[in-house]
């Protein structure tokens, strides 16, 4: 019969007629994923299913362990269709527990070991999860955390740990497996209902709204996806897959270990990915497919392959997100691009595609049953050929709705049921087929090394942090992870920028219970958020700001002195600046470079003023400081926070016998000036106001006018001898702008 027999409240099942269409097309069958796995386990009994640094398992062994795991999970009080929260890193135990759940008819929720009370608490409550599987040997005490979650989430009855030491009150998977008899386990599992149209697992969405969303994936459609991947990429029985991504992710499940275990191939499990571990895997497991992700991973892989002396021709393909060209150039191996979403749609490039398709696109859908549209953002109109549009998809594996999320589900689909991905793509026809190129995202998500971080979730939380008026997250390009998280914030009155930063946000988000991979790795304080003409925060501008390297003030300024004692006594003893560092060196390499001292005085907020004293070197005439405008243009200007502080300095200097030559209110800074024993001019200033976009534009115009005048003078035109020229040109620029 087509369609689910025992629906779970909150799960959106595709309409019966839609299912019927895919059944008739042969995509959806009566076979469940778990039954297909069991069949493969039987057929491939003596072959190696799992390999890696922690040893190998044959298919028969994996079958036995997962039978016992399934039975043990039921014996612990869980019942078929109960949801089970997963917090297990890459390991054989993860695979055993996961497949055990499938055999027991339990529904894994694909959360991460890195998630904390914010995510786990919310999702466990939302999905009414009854089970919680945690990694016992994680750096973080996940077992203690699981117990805490049991206290705060009433539905969580069963907590089981794996891979750790035995702990009172919390059963260990390993012990439960020991106690379970295989024969009894098989009998117990026989009663578990099998429904090909039932949810098999809940994946996590990258999300676009404040809270994470759950994606139900179904037994027969997930099986269909895996069979398609194996067919499309020509996975073989003797393939060895090494894809060091989180195994709980859809990408690993649907494209790597899932299809591998259906084919009788070997999947390599590496709990701790280190350069050493990669070399060991390459040497011992001899993978035929390798996952590398981004460019930098390809470089690392190159080093490891050289170290492991990988046999040429052994590796058939390298998965990357966008580095196929690089893979060919650096490794001389075929690279395979993948694009996918947990919501159930995948594209690949493969060997038989032309080089243009393989290196410049993310491929094409695997079968004609997947329908693809590129929509003009915000509309349901298709873009013209070649234009960039939002990818919208419909197909046998594409979801019809997130779990229990009516409001989101109303926005996530077109009227004719295409899922709107939030990703931007362009299409191009190569060799008569339509391929797609990734062009960015419109959903507000940061992809940090494959973990999707939903900006709004963290922005809302940070908006409640001490002193923060508004927070906006954007991704900043990173060679290793693709993107890292940069937070831009504006402050409430009375909050100082020095109170806000990466450490304060880390403490805040840790306390709130957010996974660490969501914490900002760079924090920038703005006086105002840039906005679009619609008044929304201009994230494109923030991304631009985040992608350029930033400075955060002055570390030191340095000038030479021929008055060592006077200089030290002036800065250290009269001004009271702490002497914080002194370098003394025997020359500096170059022939004739004198021995010297280089010493630093603290000038607040991490800045210093530094001097060089060259031993035995006479002061050249051109470095004798004359107290006039040309020499004085080189000066140090220190910053104080308030007018009171500036006046305190003035009184302090006068009291110490240092003459304050001038006290001037400039346009945006009010300053006092004095001289040190070298005659160098020192300014202390306080900002009278922050600059705004008006000042910035005005400065651009002034300099544009002045540079024009300079260019003209250089080319022999009108001389440039007066500021009048600049002001008159500037007036002309105003008129031109108006026109």
């Amino acid at each position, binding site marked *: 019969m087509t369609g689910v027999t025992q629906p779970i409240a909150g799960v959106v099942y595709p309409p019966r007629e839609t299912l019927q269409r895919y059944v008739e097309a042969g995509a959806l069958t009566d076979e469940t994923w778990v039954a297909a796995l069991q069949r493969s386990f039987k057929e491939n009994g003596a072959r190696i299913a799992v390999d890696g640094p922690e040893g190998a398992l044959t298919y028969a062994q994996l079958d036995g362990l997962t039978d016992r795991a399934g039975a043990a999970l039921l014996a612990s009080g869980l019942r078929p269709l109960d949801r089970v929260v997963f917090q297990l890193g890459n390991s054989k135990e993860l695979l055993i527990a996961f497949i055990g759940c499938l055999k027991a008819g339990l529904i894994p929720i694909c959360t991460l070991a890195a998630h904390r009370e914010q995510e786990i608490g919310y999702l466990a409550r939302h999905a009414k999860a009854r089970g919680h599987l945690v990694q016992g040997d994680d750096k973080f005490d996940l077992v203690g955390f699981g117990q805490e979650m049991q206290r705060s989430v009433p539905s969580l009855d069963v907590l089981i740990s794996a891979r750790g030491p035995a702990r009172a009150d919390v059963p260990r998977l390993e012990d439960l497996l020991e106690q379970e008899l295989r024969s009894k386990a098989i009998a117990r599992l026989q009663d578990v209902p099998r429904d090909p149209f039932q949810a098999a697992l809940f994946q996590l969405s990258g999300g676009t709204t404040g809270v994470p969303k759950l994606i139900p994936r179904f037994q027969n459609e997930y099986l269909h996806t895996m069979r398609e991947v194996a067919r499309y990429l020509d996975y073989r029985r003797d393939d060895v897959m090494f894809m060091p991504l989180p195994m709980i992710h859809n990408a690993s499940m649907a494209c790597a270990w899932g299809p591998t275990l259906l084919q009788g191939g070997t999947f390599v499990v590496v709990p701790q990915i280190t350069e050493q571990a990669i070399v060991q895997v390459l040497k011992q497991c001899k993978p035929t497919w390798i996952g590398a992700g981004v460019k930098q991973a390809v470089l690392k892989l190159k080093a490891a392959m050289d170290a492991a002396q990988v046999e040429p021709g052994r590796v058939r393909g390298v998965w990357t997100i966008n580095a196929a060209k690089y893979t060919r150039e650096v490794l001389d191996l075929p690279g395979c691009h993948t694009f996918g979403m947990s919501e159930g749609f995948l594209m690949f490039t493969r060997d038989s595609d032309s080089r243009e398709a393989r290196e410049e696109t993310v491929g094409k859908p695997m079968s004609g049953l997947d329908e693809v549209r590129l929509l003009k953002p915000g509309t349901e109109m298709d873009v013209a050929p070649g234009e960039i549009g939002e990818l919208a998809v419909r197909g046998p594996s594409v979801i019809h709705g997130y779990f229990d999320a009516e409001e989101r589900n109303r926005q996530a689909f077109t009227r004719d049921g295409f899922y709107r991905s939030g990703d931007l793509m362009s299409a191009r026809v190569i060799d008569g087929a339509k391929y797609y190129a990734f062009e960015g995202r419109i959903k507000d998500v940061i992809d940090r090394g494959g973990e999707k971080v939903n900006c709004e979730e963290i922005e809302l939380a940070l908006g409640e942090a001490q002193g923060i008026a508004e927070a906006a997250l954007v991704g900043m390009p990173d060679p290793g992870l693709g993107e890292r998280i940069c937070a831009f914030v504006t402050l409430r009155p009375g909050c100082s920028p020095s109170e806000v930063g990466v450490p304060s946000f880390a403490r805040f988000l840790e306390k709130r219970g957010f996974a660490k991979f969501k914490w900002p790795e760079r924090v920038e304080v703005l006086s105002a958020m840039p906005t679009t003409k619609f008044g929304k925060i201009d994230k494109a501008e923030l991304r631009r700001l985040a992608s350029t390297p930033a400075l955060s003030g002055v570390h030191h300024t340095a000038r030479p002195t021929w008055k060592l004692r006077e200089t030290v006594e002036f800065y250290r003893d009269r001004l009271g600046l702490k002497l914080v560092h002194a370098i003394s060196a025997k020359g500096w390499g170059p022939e004739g470079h004198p021995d010297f001292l280089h010493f630093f005085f603290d000038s607040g907020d991490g800045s210093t003023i530094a001097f060089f004293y060259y031993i035995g070197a006479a002061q050249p005439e051109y470095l004798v400081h004359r107290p006039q405008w040309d020499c004085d243009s080189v000066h140090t200007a220190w910053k104080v926070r308030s007018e009171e502080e500036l006046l305190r300095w003035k009184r302090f200097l006068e009291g110490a016998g240092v003459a304050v030559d001038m006290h001037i209110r400039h346009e945006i800074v009010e300053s006092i000036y004095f001289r040190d024993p070298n005659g160098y001019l020192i300014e202390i200033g306080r900002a009278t106001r922050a600059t705004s976009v008006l000042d910035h534009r005005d400065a651009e115009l002034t300099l544009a006018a002045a540079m024009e005048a300079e260019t003209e003078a250089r080319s022999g035109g009108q001389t440039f001898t007066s500021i*009048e020229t600049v*002001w*008159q040109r500037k*007036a002309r620029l*105003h008129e031109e702008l108006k026109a």
Partner: protein
Amino acid sequence: MMPKVYVLDVPEFRPLIDGARSTGCTVQGPAGGYFTIAAPRELVFARAALGLKPALWYSSLSGGVEGRIAQFDRDTIRIAAW
């Protein structure tokens, strides 16, 4: 053409605007971040009347000038038509 100066709409240059209004010049704006001050034949500013300190006085035309600076000393600025 009437002499005209542009004055950036920031507090420190506000005395120029207030002064120009009180002496009957044509003040428009702010538009695009600038006021403009114009007069039929000649624009005259007196530092004492505006109460501008020298540092600001000497950059008081930095917004832009349409016309010729006929006089610019410590106390008076005169801008004539081209």
